[in-house]
Structures are given as C-alpha cells and as structure tokens.
C-alpha cells in the first residue's frame, strides 16, 4: 500500500522590539542572566502588564505579508499552567480571537538543478497569534536555574493547516517564513538564538484516504535542516510501523539530531486543561483601518515578487536571482545599479553575486560599510563592454576598487591595465605562439578545436592578460586556416 504524510507546523517567531511585550524592560539577546527583568517580567505581586504596540505592529505586518485577514478586534487570554520558566504561571496569549486569521505562505521547492526554478505552492495558515515568551531553564547536576531575560519577549505563533506532505515542503515553508520576516524587519529568525522555533504535527495515511491518521507531535527541531530531517525520519518510521501492522498512538516525540532519529518523549498526552479566560488586566484591542493601512504601507516587496520581477524586468537568470533575492539589502543594491542601465543588469548581477559577495566575506565587511557603490559596478561593466579591459582583468580591477574605493577607470589608469599594444602586435604574438607550439597546432588541424585554448593561453601570457580573448581567438583561427 502507498502512504502519504500530512504535516502541520507550529512556528514560534520572536518579534524584534526594543522593549518586551507587556513590560518596559529591554528585550534582547546576549545579556547576563536575569539582567532584562522588571516587576512585570518577574511576576512580582502587584505588577501589571501593559501592551507594547510595536509588538502588534510586528504581527500585523506578518499577517498582512501572509495574506491573513486581520479582524477589527483581538483580545488577550490567560493560558494557565505551572512551569518554572513562566513567571506568573500563566502565559498571556490569544485563545479565540487571534490577531491574524487564515492566510497562506508561498513556498518554492527545489528545482531539477540549481539553475532551475522549482515548483511554487501556497501553504494555508490557520492563524497567527501573539503571546509572551517564557524564560529559559538551565539544568545542572544538582539543581536547575532559570534566566528570565527571554521572558516576555514578544512571540508570535504561526500555525499552518495540515497542508504539507514532505520534509522538503516543511523546509521550504520555514525558509519562506524566515525570508519574509527578515524582509519585513519583523524578526531576524535566528534559530540558534531561539528567535524562530518549530514543532511539527505529522501523520501518515494510505493514499486516497481523506481522514487524518493519528498524529505525532515532533519537538526539538532546532534548525531548518533539523525540521526536514526529523520529519523525513518520522514519516518513514510511521509508514514502517503501519506496514508492520502496528498502529500509531498519538504522542509527543523528539528529534535527536546527533543520532539522527526520533525518540519518544511522552506516550500519552498529558490531559492539559489550560483554563483559558480573558486576561482582566488587559483591554481588547481595536485594529482600525488607519492602523492596518499604515502597516500595509510599510510592507516591502516580498522575496518571491522581487525574484519574478528581476527575472522579467532585468532578464536575470534564476541562479543570480536566487543568490540576490534572499538578501534584501544586496538585491536593493543591485537594483540601484541596474536601474541606471538595465542593459548592463546581468553583468552587474554577476559582479554582485560573485565578486562583491566574495570580497565582503573575505574582508568580513557588510555591504553598508564597504566602498563599492552602484557607480563602481557601472564603471567596471562599461570598461569591459568597451573592450578597455578583459573580463579577466576586470576581476582584478574589482578587487582593487573594493580595496581603494576608486572607480574602474581610475584603477585601470593607475595600474596601467589598458592594452599598450595594437592589433598588429596581437597578430605577431599569435604567429609566435603558433610557431612555438607545433603540437597543439597539429591537434587543432586534425579536428580538436579545444587545442586552440593552449595557443590562446600563450598569447594572453605574452600580452600580460590584456589582450581581448575574443579577438585573439579570431586571429588564431585566421592564421591557422
């Protein structure tokens, strides 16, 4: 029998704000234990939560980016449970009136090769709601310590419908959420810092069956790759069990990335009764037209839209866009240059995604503080197009521009990279190369076209790389025929 998997994801994303969600305490990462606390964060007697509007801005932005509907009102509820990382032993969350309902996340699956765009799909969302994050427990041999720095960081929970069917789709789903949130400035989604966390609900069923099988909740998925691997392993495990004639019991499992397998955490789901009720310390929130509109106007062009437009408007190959687009500042930088002369866009894209990225990474610099401007790129592409320098030399010129901040012309001038010989000289060098290398000449003449490259290399050497390879090629062919 053939089986298919059905997967739903619950993704927690921290919203990047100056202060915490219900307290004026600073929000952040990398501080000493319990430095980011105040009476509210510690749940002291008499402390009261006050909503941080910036956190709502963030989630509304996320909701609009994912095409959710934003109801006019949302409210806050208490979810009651005891756990030492929870200062009040209740979490403030949104139970039956979340701020975002429905919506979908566009994903792209891997193409047949890296140069080809993969299939695009839309994964349905059930809702996105806002809640406070909790502290972090650190377990030691004798005792456990709790750090409340993370407590009350704004946290949104993006809940998908059971609308995915493979680890690849889950991977693409998280990648898309991450890129969209980074584009919108809502979150950095760094999973290592816990800014994005995911749990998966996984079940399998015979193909053609419409009812869902018993689901396993999979936890401890600490990276996007971990999500993919964990889900793939779990699907195989469930199918194996069913094929053996066993049934799946609803339970919580964890992904063990070191051993590459899933492990049972809790056999029977604790019958949690969270005793949700409206938080009497907070008022319902009205999201009016102006508010929604203001946030809508702050949403940038989203990654997939940008990619489609770059391919169409600048005729960029998929490979370049797939490097450019995930990086919003890089793609904006590209476009500043490309806009000035769209005909040069492809060449600009190549320099940006190859040479610029390489130099930035080697220098450990960010785009914002490097010396390369759109004008630099244009000057370089122009010099190559005019035949002033070869593409090979252009690579060196780029490195020099990056280092000194000079435009291409200035580098070429200063370093004397312009050809200091004429076409006749090229012809002389070509003849010399032919005379000095009888073997490749013979090979070429007996039909091995590639043998010409050896001669070309010799000529380039003689010209110290300054000769134009296309014209050398042509001259060699003329001389040999």
């Amino acid at each position: 029998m053939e089986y298919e998997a059905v997967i739903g994801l619950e993704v927690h994303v921290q919203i990047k704000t100056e202060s915490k969600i219900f307290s004026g305490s600073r929000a952040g990462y990398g501080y000493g234990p319990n430095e980011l606390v105040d009476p509210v964060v510690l749940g002291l007697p008499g402390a009261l939560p006050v909503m941080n509007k910036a956190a709502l801005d963030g989630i509304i932005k996320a909701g609009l980016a994912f095409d959710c509907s934003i109801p006019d009102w949302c409210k806050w509820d208490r979810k009651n449970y005891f756990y030492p990382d929870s200062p009040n032993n209740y979490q403030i969350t949104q139970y039956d009136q979340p701020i975002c309902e429905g919506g979908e996340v566009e994903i792209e699956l891997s193409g047949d090769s890296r140069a080809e765009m993969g299939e695009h799909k839309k994964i349905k969302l059930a809702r996105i709601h806002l809640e406070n994050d909790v502290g972090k427990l650190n377990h030691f041999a004798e005792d456990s310590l709790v750090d409340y720095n993370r407590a009350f960081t704004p946290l949104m929970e993006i809940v998908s419908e059971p609308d995915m069917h493979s680890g690849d789709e889950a991977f693409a789903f998280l990648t898309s959420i991450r890129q969209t949130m980074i584009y919108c400035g809502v979150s950095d989604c760094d999973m290592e810092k816990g800014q994005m966390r995911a749990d998966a609900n996984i079940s399998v069923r015979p193909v053609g069956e419409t009812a869902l099988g018993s689901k396993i909740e999979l936890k401890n998925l600490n990276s996007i790759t971990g999500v993919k691997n964990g889900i793939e392993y779990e699907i195989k495990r469930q199918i194996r069990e069913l094929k053996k004639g066993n049934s799946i019991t609803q339970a919580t499992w964890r992904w063990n990335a070191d051993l590459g397998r899933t492990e049972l955490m809790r056999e029977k789901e604790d019958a949690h009764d969270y005793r949700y009720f409206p938080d009497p310390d907070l008022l319902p929130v009205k999201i009016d037209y102006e508010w929604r509109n203001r946030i809508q106007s702050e949403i940038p062009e989203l990654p997939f839209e940008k990619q489609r437009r770059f391919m169409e408007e600048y005729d960029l190959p998929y490979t370049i866009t797939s490097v450019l687009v995930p990086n919003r500042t890089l793609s904006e930088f590209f476009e500043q240059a490309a806009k000035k002369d769209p005909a040069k866009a492809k060449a600009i894209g190549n320099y940006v995604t190859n040479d610029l990225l390489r130099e930035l990474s080697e220098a450990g610099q960010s785009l914002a503080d490097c010396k390369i401007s759109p004008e630099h790129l244009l000057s370089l592409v122009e010099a190559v197009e005019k035949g002033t320098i070869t593409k090979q030399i252009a690579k060196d010129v780029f490195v020099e521009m990056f280092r000194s901040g000079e435009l291409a012309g200035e580098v070429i001038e200063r370093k004397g990279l312009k050809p200091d010989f004429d076409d006749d000289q090229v012809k002389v060098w070509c003849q010399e190369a032919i005379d000095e290398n009888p073997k490749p000449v013979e090979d070429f003449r007996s039909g091995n076209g590639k043998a010409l490259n050896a001669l070309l290399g010799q000529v380039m050497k003689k010209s110290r790389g300054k000769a134009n390879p296309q014209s050398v090629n042509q001259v060699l062919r003329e001389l040999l025929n």
Partner: protein
Amino acid sequence: MGDELHFKSAGELSDLLSSGSVSSVEIVQSLVERVGSVDDRVKAFNSFDAEDALAQAQASDDRRAKGESLGELDGIPVGLKDNLAVKDQPLTCSSKILESFVSPYDGTCIQKLKANGAVLWGRLNMDEFAMGSSTENSGTHTTSNPWDLERIPGGSSGGSAAAVGACETPISLGSDTGGSIRQPASHCGVVGLKPTYGRVSRYGLAAFASSLDQIGPIARNIDDAALLLNAISGYDPHDSTSYNIDVPDFRKAAADDSDRKWTIGLPKEYLEESSDSAAIKPVLDAIEFYKSQGFEFKDISLPHTEYAVATYYIIATAEASSNLARYDGIRYTKRADDFDGKDSIDVYHQSRALGFGEEVKRRVILGTYVLSSGYYDAYYLKAQKCRTLIRSDFENAFESVDAIMTPTSPTPATLKGAHAEDPLAMYLSDIYTIPANLAGIPGLSIPCGYVDGLPVGLQILGKPFKEDEILRVGRVFEAAHGYKDEHPEL
C-alpha cells in the same frame, strides 16, 4: 475627647503643620506612642518601622523649613494595607507564603504618596490576599474591633479600618474587591471609599481579583478621605485598566454646600433583604434625616441583585486562581522548609500547601473549578453575563437618581469566630457591597449611628467617576452629626 495629636484628623494635622504649630516628627512620635499603648489589643499592624517613619517625618519637616512643602499631605502619616508594594518594605498580604518577601519597587499609589510627602506608616493586617471579611483569615493574627475587642473589625482591610478607628493613624489605604474597604469601615465607625474601577491605579496592589480590585481611602471623616483620594487618583500608564479622565479636587467638591436638588434611590431588593437586619435602624434614621434636608427619595429596583453574590464568587475566585499562581515557591515566595520533593511539581505542592491558608485554598480550588474545561460555560461565562446585567441594573437606576443608599453591612461587627464553620454565611455578609464592584461604580460607607454600642455604616453608591457627588452627599449627614469625633475607649 483629648487634644492629643493622634486624635486629630489629617486635615487638622495638615493645618497645624502649615501654621508651624506642630512638626511631622511630633505627629509620628504621638502615633508611635498610641500604637504602643493600644495595638497590643487592637492588633491592627503586621509590622511597622518607627525609625523609618520618623526619618520620613524629619525629611518632611526639613522640606517645610526650607519652604519646600509638597502640599497638604506632606508630613501626614498614612497607614498601608499589607498588599501594597513599597520599595524595601515587607509585602506579606498577611500570607505565610510571602512572609519574607520585601518589595523591590513602589506601586503607583505609593509613588504618588511619596511625591506628596506623606509619611508611609506601617503595614496593616488583612485577610490573607484580601480574601475574607473579618481578618480572621489572616496568616498572622486576627485584628480586633476597637469598639469591642471581642469582635472582628471586618475585612479584608480590617487592619486599615481598625487602625484609623483606634486613632493609630489618621488615614490609611485599603483595597476593596467585594466590600473590603466599606464593610470594615462601617464596623469600625470610620469613613471608607471604594473609588470607581479605573480611578486609582492598581499597579503595586497585589492582585486578588483584577477586574474588581480597587485601592481606596479609609479616614475618620469625609474631608480626610477626599484629601487622600486626591493624592492617589489618576490615569497611570502602568495600569491598562486605569481610566484617563479628569480628576476633580475631591476635597473642594465634598465641602461644596451650595444648593442642589438630590434624588436618592432606595433599592427595594436591598431593603427587603435587610428589613430584619440588626443594622437597619440607624440607616433608616439617616434616610429620614436626608428627607428632612430636602433630599428626594425614590424606590428603585435592581432586579439582578439576587445573583450578585454567586456572580461575584465565580468571577473573583476564577481571577484569583490565576493571579495567585505566581506564588509557587520557585522565585521569591517561601519554599517549603523541609522540601523533599524531586521536581518542580513537588515544590509547588509543598510550598503552596504550607504557605496558603484555608480560605485562600478554598477560593483557588473554586476558581480553578469554574474555569475548567466543561464547566467554563456553565459558570464563568454565565457569571460574566450576570455581571453585565447587574451593571445595566445600575445604569438604568442612575438614569433617574443621583445616588443610591443602602446599609453597608447586614449586621454590625460580629463576634470573632462567628463564621468559622460557615464560610457561606461570611460570603453572604458582603451582599450590599459586592454589586458596586461588579458594576465598577464608586461606593462610600459613613458612620451613621450605633446598635448596641457598635458602629453602623450607611452606604452611598454613585455614578461612575462621581466620587465627588457621593462625598458631598455623605458630608451633609456628617456635618449634622458628631460621629466623626467619637472615638472608642481603649
């Protein structure tokens, strides 16, 4: 009565301070003596730091000497219910679970009192976490009624009312969730005001039931209550439920004796209930007095009154079960001494079992029950609907009346132990005060006479944010009677 400073009202003391005829240090010294001589019997205080109070008084005198007085409250001692957060002072809520807790911050009310130069004066006893009407549920001790030491002072702000009644402080702050200011005020022969929900910030008030709690003044006369209310009122960005509305000068408003035509409602449901009540006679006399002053009385109906107590105990316990979850033995609350468990669940069980008293446990369990899946609709949701009906009862009534008068409590102070075996009887004694909390409206209790030598209170309920009106109405009675100057023999 004597001329001793401790008998004087806050208003009188304020005048004496500004005329320079007395210093704040002298006032505090006289109160320290008074506490020394009577509090072994009244037992209003959980703790008080005389040294700290004298230092605050000295600072006030120094300010005044430099001509930098902070106003009419500067140098006046204010007693504090032990559920208000004061930086570096204990905050016990009269609970064993908080017995070693010291607050690292000031609540908004306290910040305001400090900004007005008040001398923060002691920590006053209460029913544990404000749950009760007698202080018998205190985790420390039971306070006595200064008028009869065998009797309860009322509660939950029993310490705050007894301390004012026994002249151990001129004024104090209490909190009122279902009558916890008004009922003890009526039992102790003093003035108590529960402001409109949202008038006074709750930031720094250890929560019992968030949607009902309100901090308010207890005083020996209306002028003092208004003086204290002036200091603590106002919108607070730290409390989302505080209301951004103008704060009138309550002292000035209460003293306004210009002509005005008043229409007062008498709810038939309350009077039927109280027809055989021991406390009814002085209340009826007070109503006759008002009639003689030209007040018009009108019979009104608040038809959902019979559901008020049940509604209240569902909502209050539901909120309390969640609010008190933070007292878990993990962070700042006391962990069971002989803790022998193996995980955090054991810490919770043992610490809460030892730290909470019977009444608190009863209410936490009740509240947990009414919020439980399967019961939520039948209890909590229904109670919220009843609450809406009770609120609209008042809205309807206030279309034709300016204020409503009722007894504050069905009986004068009862003997200690009277309700020990019957918590329900204690719950029912809040019947006249609870509806104001459910509706969010202000309520004032003023002394209106005695039954068998025990003080009885008249409750005046007003429209939302019309504390000024009920204070003014109350003062008409107070001005014609001498109750404010009568002190118990101690």
